[in-house]
């Protein structure tokens, strides 16, 4: 628990899109999926998920419908729209570029050795 990383601002939306891209999920499921794919390395307060979900629905990147969960609870399920899929691709690319750049900038340089 203690070595969990704080989320960078703006990255929660990307994580939600990524989690939902693997199949329709309800809110709690999104949280579990993020934990699963990040190896539980990220600290997300549970409630913080919902404003993000609603924002993405309003932007037309997710669509939501009521359904029943695996243990028979009524829950709202989210899935990606076409626009959401496209946005995920773009955001992933730009994140990778950023990560590479930051990574190489922070890597030990030859003259430092």
């Amino acid at each position, binding site marked *: 628990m203690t070595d969990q990383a704080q989320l960078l601002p703006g990255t929660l939306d990307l994580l939600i899109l990524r989690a939902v891209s693997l199949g329709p999920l*309800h*809110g*709690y*499921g999104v949280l579990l999926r993020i934990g699963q794919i990040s190896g539980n390395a990220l600290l997300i*307060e*549970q*409630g*913080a998920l*919902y*404003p*993000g979900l*609603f*924002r993405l629905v*309003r*932007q*037309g990147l997710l669509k939501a419908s009521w359904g029943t*969960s695996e*243990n028979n*609870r*009524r*829950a*709202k399920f989210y899935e990606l729209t076409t626009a959401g899929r496209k946005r995920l691709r773009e955001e992933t690319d730009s994140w990778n570029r950023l990560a590479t750049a930051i990574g190489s900038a922070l890597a030990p340089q030859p003259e430092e050795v």
Partner: protein
Amino acid sequence: MKLLAWIRSVAAKFFRRSQVADEMEAELRSHLLLRADDLERSGLDRAEAERRARIEFGGYERYREESHEALGGNFLETFVQDLRFSLRMLRKSPGFAIAAVLTLALAIGANAVVFSVMNALILRQANVPQADSLYAIERGRDKAINHSYPDYLDLRDRNRSFDGLAAYNVAAVGLDTGDNPSGAWIFEVTGNYFDVLRVQPYLGRYFHGSDEGGPNSAPYIVLTYAFWHSHFQDDRGVVGRTVRLNKHPFIILGVAPPEFKGTLTFLFPDFWVPIVNQEQVEGLNVLNQRGNRGILMVFGHLKAGVTRVQAISDLNSIGAWLEKTYPKDDGRMNFYLTRPGLAGDWLGGPMQGFLTGLMLLAGLILLAACANLGSLFAARAADRSREVALRLALGSSRRRILRQVFTEAVLISLVGGSVGISASVFLLHGLSVWRPLSGVDLHVPVNPDAKVYLVALALALASGFLFGAVPVRQILRTNPYEVVKSGSTAKIGRRISVRDLLLVVQIALCAVLVTSSMVAVRGLWRSLHSNFGFEPRNAMLVGTNLFMAGYGGDQVPAMQKRMIDAVEAVPGVESVGLVDRPPLYYGANATNIYTDKTADPRPSNAAFEAVVYNITPGYFDAAQTRLLAGRTLSWHDDKNSPRVALINREFAGKIFGSVTSAMGGYFKRLDGTRIQVVGVVEDGKYGSLTENPQPAMFLSILQQSPSNGTVLVVRSKRDPQQLAAALTSTLRNLDAGLPADIQTWNQELDGALLASRMATVSLGVLGMMGAMLSITGIFGMAAYSVSKRLRELGIRVALGAQRKEVLQAALGRAVKLLAFGSAAGLVLGILASRVLASIVYQATPRDPLVLAGVVLVMLLLGLVATWIPAQRALSVDPMMLLREE
């Protein structure tokens, strides 16, 4: 994102508000249940699992709120929520709400009134097509608006910048439509007047430049709609009818549309007459005299693409040509452009200055009101700190709380603003139908238009945000933990708080207003009791126009002498004099004066300008103007004897150095005549009450060409009404067709005093508003500080404090602030009053009476405002208070 979809989502969210909210709640709850299920599976019991799920979820209220915002459609909803809440809060404290609304209504109302007067008189343009390009021409260093007719012709024909130049003059005539001869105000205009203004007739036709063919060649009349309506009962058959104007036949050509009333803002003509008929209208024709600048105004539309600067340089090149070609008549001929509505800078300048000053003062009122409301709001916020803390503790964001506070402030400001503007509309309507002077159809057309409403709205909103912003820091700093823990007992700070500062600012502003209004009132009082160079009490003026009655040439002096003799015989009349135009009657006639040594009199080498009066021998007696040296005129100073004059002290000093050396001396006029000084009289007021001493001379009316105006000054101690009746019958016996306007000299002076009267009234009203605001401000502050400290005061009383000490503890601070604010305001007010001196005659702040008055007023205000809080502090019952806690 698609706009339409967004709007639909917002609208849908708004209208299905509860459904959306319910759905969201359900989803959040389902999350908690799912989490609790998982935790239960990991071995916790159900109750513990649900508790853990809620803790892990984080601030439930906060996320609910944020989710709501993320769903969109939140703004309106929040706004409606805030509005409801604000209304509920205000209903709970009606005293506060009423005080706040009234304060703002006063301030916004004052601003709306002043702005709409400014809007109507200065900003609004003439009601003619393409008014933006319409300019009047001003001349010379003093920016005089009047010109001579020959100069006008040269300007009209030689300029390349205007789409035609027209000119006009205001005159009074006698109109006889067949039954009842009556006086009327008219504009004598050039033939191209209507064409230059691009207006179309409502009925019949206008006259044009082509109708002019020399003196008295165009006996035509065009009626204004209003005059047609009131004097011809909308009779469409008037076109082509012949009426008699000063006994001369004129043909009615047409009627102007209702919205066109000439280009002067404050004076509407009854009809228009071609200026070439000046002799028939005014009795004399000065259109051929280049030195006689009797044309009131010359104006025209700038050609498309010509800028003001280009037009001015074009006019100035004509001016240079005029100076060179007519050195005898045309002195300095440089030109400026101005708007035609206010007769140029002569009237427009001081008016603009005064209205700007008034607008500033009204702005100060609004600021003071905002300071007042700001401190009220700050006090309220302090009282509500517990509520704010509770809301913060429950997860509300500070932004949300601030939004509510601003909603409340803007709500108050809008309600106050609408009350203010409704009140001002009533007031302005009253002003619009008001005719300030009897005998002259003077208008103050100040009905508000869309611009006024817009400005009032903007001011209301701005002030709402201004005073709403005062408690912001207080709210941002609220520490919910501290407040909830320690309760609402406010700490009594010894520091200077924002509230104290606001109160000082407010009192200072109010003191400025009180000071300036007292300075103005005192100035008016003085100007009413100063030496005018004549004595208006116990004197009657009988104004006649002999030309209107058909007299001309040598008949005029003969008739004037007969009138004087007849009036002198009226019982009770002490003395009678005649003057062509009484002093302080809408400006004065001035003429160039040359020293006796000037060989070549021309405008450029004049010694100075002097006001000139043509009088009969009895005038000084009747007017009670004091003779300082020499003799007055006699009936022997006529055409056959040497030209003589009496001059005033200022004139004597200017040209001869002193009164004694002036006696028997000579000076010259433009036409080269030498005039001998036979007497010197005291200085007086001639053009306006605020003028500096002007040189003036009094000539024998018998030695001048017959004068148009004939005003008898009748001195008598008889009752004015009886005397007026006696005078009317006397004059009717002389000539039944002679129109005579009889009033006391004081009544006639109303015109000269109008400006300072209006200035004083408006400043007085603003001063009173300032005083009221400072009362509410001090009262609010004192009452609040007493109520906050009741418990402390109770303890003091219980411990044996005396009345004096209780009062000092309760109100010492308020009184200190009051004294400090008043002193600051007094100093500022004295500085600001210099501006007033230019409008209000003898307005000087360095007057012990004014200073004492201001101090007294502020003291009284303080006493009134702190009276109730002081009573409350003194009646503190320690037992009651201590038991309550």
